[in-house]
């Protein structure tokens, strides 16, 4: 019965995600009607259509070149940030942490900016983003554990704040030395968070490691329940705590660092989506992780749609997720506090 209930949640959320994806594909400065979209699908699948070739070519261009990469990237990044947030919260037994709060996004953005400065190879940018993302988590944990030997929710958050500030300062140095006419504006705009630079090839390249990370986190989800009870209890229940923690942190850091490489710093998603899902279906990670992935994708898709459509100019999505995330988190904090104590 429980499995059926889980299945229903997953199917319903996947349908919602698909609806959000279709909405994002159709809506924009050039609006594509449902009827036209079905005709386009008919043409792509069966090579028959009543629409003229010129319109089909235009729709083909809009969907494949502009909107599809953006939709796929939004789903990937939303899923990556949300699952990473849920996993970090379980690994550190701390509902207040996320890739942003632990400093991963700041560390990864510093690494990616270094990569952009020293190399034109995308893979170098990705590797440096991951390395510095990982260093920033390690630094946050180190600071948290230096001050107190016991596990402290607040100290880890403060460790993350310090780590994030350090890498933000280092990033400022990169900005300072970057070419003010080309590299600097590119870095600044990229850091605000945007999905507009996506093309299908780049999306597919980053989709592989992000999807592997998310799949890995979903497969390991049963251990996260036990790990969130604390190390001693998890070990006594048969978990290889050190191994699971290292793999989980590597996967979560990889997914969130790659999101930074592709779209800059998109904050709050990794914090609020796991909380909203937890409030809706409970804390069991076997459902929380896959549902966070789906809901995170849908949330970022909708946020991206708003960022494109709300004003005549596109609002950077990172700014928008912060504006949406802060009030949601205040509500979540109020409701969830009782369960944390």
């Amino acid at each position, binding site marked *: 019965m429980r499995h059926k209930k889980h299945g229903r949640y997953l199917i319903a959320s996947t349908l919602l995600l698909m609806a959000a994806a279709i909405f994002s594909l159709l809506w924009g400065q050039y609006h594509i009607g449902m009827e036209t979209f079905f005709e386009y699908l008919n043409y792509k699948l069966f090579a028959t259509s009543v629409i003229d070739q010129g319109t089909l070519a235009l729709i083909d261009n809009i969907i494949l070149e502009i909107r599809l990469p953006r939709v796929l990237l939004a789903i990937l990044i939303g899923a990556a940030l949300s699952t990473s947030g849920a996993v970090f919260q379980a690994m550190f037994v701390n*509902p207040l942490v996320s890739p942003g709060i632990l400093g991963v996004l700041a560390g990864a953005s510093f690494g990616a900016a270094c990569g952009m400065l020293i190399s034109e190879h995308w893979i170098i940018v990705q590797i440096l983003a991951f390395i510095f993302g990982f260093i920033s988590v390690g630094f946050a944990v180190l600071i948290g554990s230096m001050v107190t030997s016991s596990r402290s929710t607040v100290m880890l958050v403060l460790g993350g704040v310090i780590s994030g500030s350090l890498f933000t300062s280092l990033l400022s140095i990169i900005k300072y030395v970057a070419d003010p006419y080309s590299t600097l504006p590119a870095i600044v705009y990229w850091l605000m968070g945007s999905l507009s630079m996506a093309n299908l090839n780049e999306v597919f390249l980053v989709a592989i490691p992000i999807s592997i990370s998310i799949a890995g986190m979903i497969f390991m989800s049963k251990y996260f*329940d036990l790990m969130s*009870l604390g190390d001693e*209890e998890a070990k*006594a229940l048969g*978990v290889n705590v050190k191994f699971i923690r290292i793999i989980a942190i590597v996967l979560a850091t990889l997914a969130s660092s790659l999101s930074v490489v592709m779209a800059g710093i998109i904050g709050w998603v990794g914090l609020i989506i796991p909380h909203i899902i937890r409030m809706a279906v*409970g804390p069991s990670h076997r459902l929380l992780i896959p549902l966070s992935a789906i809901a995170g994708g849908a949330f970022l898709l909708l946020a991206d749609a708003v960022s494109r459509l709300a004003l005549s100019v596109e609002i950077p999505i990172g700014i928008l997720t912060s504006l949406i995330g802060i009030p949601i988190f205040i509500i979540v904090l109020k409701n969830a506090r009782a369960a944390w104590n």
Partner: protein
Amino acid sequence: MELKPIIEVKDLHFSYKKHQVLAGVDLELYRGEVVSLLGPNGCGKSTLIKLILKLLHGEGEIKIASKEIEKYSHKDIASHVAYIPQYNNTPFNYTVLEMVVMGRVAKLDFFALPSASDYEMANIALKKIDIEHLSNRAFGQLSGGQKQMVLLARAIAQEVNVFIMDEPVAGLDYGNQIRLLELINELSAQGYTFLKTTHYPDHALLVSSRVVVMNGGKIIAEGTPYEVITSKMIESVYDIKADIITHDAHKRCVPIFKK
């Protein structure tokens, strides 16, 4: 046929930084026993338990089912021994059933998820100690006594016969303390083996087949509860006076105020 201990500890030493916590402890636990570890704060009871569970590493020999624990993974240990810690709140409020199903994880392959039969085992465990009505309740919202019972159900779902409990009645009100002791008694009658730490000589008198008294990192007395728990032992270990009286054919420990 010689009876082999399920847990064997020989000449165990453990130090935390420069402070010696255990100084040569020998202990054996046999199937069907209820052993109470008694002693003042800091005498090394909890440390001994954690060393047996491989949660800490000391010097000396510890064997579970005749095999050194160094050769076991945590998963192997969890398939021999269940640990019931003092209840603590997790920031994530799992349901009782989810908490009990966690006891099944050591039985699963790396990528396998708990199946319908694992949930069935969890339900059987809840039924066994009469708390199936709590199944869908949030663990964090239960009373201390109910939480401790849920952790016992989780240990039963783990399908092992040896339960190690760290101060099981700590923080419980008087009624829940006694109910939990009754439950330990019932489970012991069904064949489960218990090694538990306690601060209460009275509880050790009520529910133990053997009492081990520790002080200063050493075992200073060992035997049946009636042999070991005496006025003299209470005075030497806790530095207070107490009478051991007989009530309804059972011995009880009654502390005496100085004035």
